[in-house]
């Protein structure tokens, strides 16, 4: 170990920062990798991991800080340049061209064929032919091919982003073996994963990001998970009291929404939950665990492969969001760009659902509409100074508009997908209060959040989804951040007292 300190690190990123408009994605990220090391890059949702990865691989430019490769400050302007500098990434989505065959994809990336075949073999894909179309291959195979292509480039540094996410167990084993073998031969690996077991198995160190800054760099040893979880958790979110502890409802009677064994695509495997009137049910999950698909099915955007949905005890199947709305299920999407008419006014955005049916195509009763819109604006305290175009509002106010739409229409069941992402603390608190108020008036709310501290503030209980399945249900009283974080990472609950 002492020998390594004297040599220049292969990659040394210091004080990297990046902002997008008003949002600071990274404030002070750093990462140091020596020859032959495997370093885990960890961080909760929104900690800035993906931004950091994009900067390291040249897909984004950093605002300040430096990225040194072998001690030299090199501008990595594009993924192609990063590749030439010896840093080869394997992204979460395969970067293979679906409509070309394997051979053409190799030629496109100037990848030597023989080493590629060797690695494909090593990684355990037996029946691959170079004439196979990429688009016809299963996702797991594509990820392996992407890795094999990267390995064939003989990279100095290999960056693996959630490499094992969509893989079956036997392939995971092969990947871990090959990665370890790479490190033993002196190549370095940046390993991004949510799976502690894998990190413990192959990594030398773990670098932890929180709120855009690197907060720790730990060698991997027994019991290191607890320390990492602790580092990933920020200071507790101070939003003040949003509700009385006694008001926590106890579910009973027919649930407003009952979901059984829902499955869709490769991510949503088997989710069951029930939501009662007056209840706020939190959904806790790391990114890409199937929560997107769950909400899309409930909102009528997509149809499930398997499973049933019942509203007030009646089975439903939605062909269009209009069906879901008719059943009282109203959806606030996570990406505000999907939910808003950006060039239109606050008024028009809020009034949109009121006009959706052809029966409402005629003259608008302006006064009645204005009253409903005004009510929603006041109830949400939307800042209407820039109401001419929604795109000129702050993120928080935009979010209020997407929710206000359903307040104006009347709320039965509200599906909120990460409503507080990227908005200020004051607005967050307003949204928690609103959610509680709606529940108190008898609405049912399904509330996915990427910010764990919100669960006790806004929800009565939370279902935890990991790998497309419900792994735990945690009551608000027990829903402290460490418990939720462990559950979200698929770790078993700690014995009482330890947290």
């Amino acid at each position: 170990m002492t020998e390594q300190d004297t040599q220049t690190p292969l990659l040394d990123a210091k004080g990297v920062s990046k902002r997008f408009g008003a949002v600071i994605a990274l404030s002070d990220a750093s990462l140091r990798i020596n020859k032959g090391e495997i370093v885990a890059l960890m961080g909760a949702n929104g900690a800035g991991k993906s931004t950091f990865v994009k900067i390291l691989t040249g897909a984004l430019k950093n605002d300040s800080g430096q990225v040194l490769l072998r001690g030299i400050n090199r501008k990595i302007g594009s993924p192609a340049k990063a590749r030439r500098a010896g840093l080869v990434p394997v992204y979460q989505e395969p970067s293979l061209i679906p409509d070309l065959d394997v051979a053409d994809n190799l030629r496109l990336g100037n990848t030597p064929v023989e080493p590629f075949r060797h690695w494909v073999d090593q990684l355990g894909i037996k029946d691959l032919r170079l004439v196979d179309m990429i688009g016809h291959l299963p996702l797991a195979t594509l990820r392996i091919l992407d890795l094999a292509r990267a390995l064939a480039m003989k990279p100095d540094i290999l960056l693996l982003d959630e490499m094992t996410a969509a893989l079956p167990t036997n392939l995971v084993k092969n990947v871990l073996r090959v990665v370890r073998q790479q490190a033993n031969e002196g190549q370095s690996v940046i390993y991004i994963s949510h799976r502690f077991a894998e990190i413990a198995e192959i990594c030398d160190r773990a670098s932890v990001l929180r709120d855009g800054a690197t907060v720790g760099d730990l060698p991997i040893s027994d019991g290191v998970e607890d320390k990492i979880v602790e580092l990933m958790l920020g200071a507790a979110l101070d939003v003040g009291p949003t509700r009385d502890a006694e008001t926590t409802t106890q579910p009973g009677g027919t649930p407003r929404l009952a979901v059984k064994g829902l499955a869709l695509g490769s991510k949503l495997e088997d989710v069951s939950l029930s939501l009662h009137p007056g209840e706020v049910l939190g959904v806790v999950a790391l990114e890409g665990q199937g929560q997107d698909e769950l909400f899309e099915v409930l909102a009528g955007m997509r149809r499930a492969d398997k499973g049933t949905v019942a509203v007030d005890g009646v089975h439903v199947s939605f062909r269009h969001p209009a069906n879901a709305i008719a059943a009282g299920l109203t959806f606030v999407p996570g990406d505000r760009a999907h939910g808003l008419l950006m060039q239109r006014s606050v008024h028009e955005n809020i009034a949109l659902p009121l006009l959706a049916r052809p029966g409402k195509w005629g003259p608008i009763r302006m006064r009645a509409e204005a009253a409903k819109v005004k009510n929603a604006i006041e109830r949400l305290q939307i800042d209407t100074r820039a109401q001419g175009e929604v795109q000129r509002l702050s993120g928080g106010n935009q979010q209020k508009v997407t929710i206000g739409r359903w307040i104006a229409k009347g709320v039965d069941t509200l599906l909120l997908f990460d409503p507080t992402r990227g908005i200020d603390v004051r607005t967050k608190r307003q949204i928690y209060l609103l959610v509680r108020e709606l529940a108190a008036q008898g609405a049912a709310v399904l509330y996915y959040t990427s910010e764990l501290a919100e669960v006790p503030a806004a929800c009565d209980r939370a279902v935890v989804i990991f790998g497309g399945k419900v792994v735990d249900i945690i009551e608000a009283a027990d829903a402290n951040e460490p418990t939720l974080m462990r559950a979200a990472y698929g770790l078993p609950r700690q014995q009482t007292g330890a947290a």
Partner: protein
Amino acid sequence: MSRFISKHGWTLGLLALFLSLLAFTRVIQPDFGASGLESLTRATLPFAFATAAMAVVVIAGGIDLSVASMMAVAGVTAAVLMEGVSGGASVAVVGLVLVLGLVMGAINGALIVVTRVPDIVVTLAMLFVWEGVALLILKAPGGAASPWLRSMIAGSLGIYWLPKAFVLLAVCLAIIWVPLRRSRLGLSIYAIGSDEHAAYRSGIAIGWTRIAAYAICGLFAAMGGLALTMSTGNGEPIPGPYLLASVAAVVLGGVVLGGGRGALLGPIIAVFILRLVRMDLTLLSVDPNITTIVEGTIMVVVVMLGAVLAYRGRRA
């Protein structure tokens, strides 16, 4: 062999359809032979080049609405420059027109990349611009085509049933397409149409590839314009119905609107099928105007089916 069939199933199916249509033509017109094939190929030639032009940009994930207008510019330029010019000079004219096509296409592509205005809007505006340019060059049909050029597409080769026009088409397309298809540029064109993000991550220069695709489109369009002038013997500034025909042939030929899939062979067979349908209708002595309606309806229905399939594919 089975893999060959599954990979080229659509093209083989089109070929079978074309051959059965030929057989049908023979039934309704027993003396349909070398001269029939020859006139079919000659009539199809400009359509085939327009289709090739459209196919390249559609594979790259775009569309070019100005194909017919660029053909008109190339056609009238050739006709005007060739009037009363010797054989040697007219060879230079042909070269010049081809370069003109490349330049026009590259301008389209560069405007799309630089202005960041969607391709469909840019090429709509350029449709008007090229149309105007053609009108400025030649107000009414006129000019001439060198005799050696006209003879290049007239008649058949020797005793064979092989129309000269067909040989010309095959040679022109092969000279450009065959080396391109397997080159890095060709693969990049497929890549940006198939998945632009993946292409970027694979290190492809998206902008330059797009400009190149449009330039090749312009080149094929210029060939189409030349072919038009060769077959009519003069330049026609008002563009013919090549835009819709080329989109329909491209879709029928198995190139998915949205990009990444298909090749040139399918669309070329498809355009022959569409022309042969028209010829058969004429042989059946259907009113030529009704033929136009039937043809238009076939094309619109093909495009509609193609759009439905592309939409389904995107959602799945």
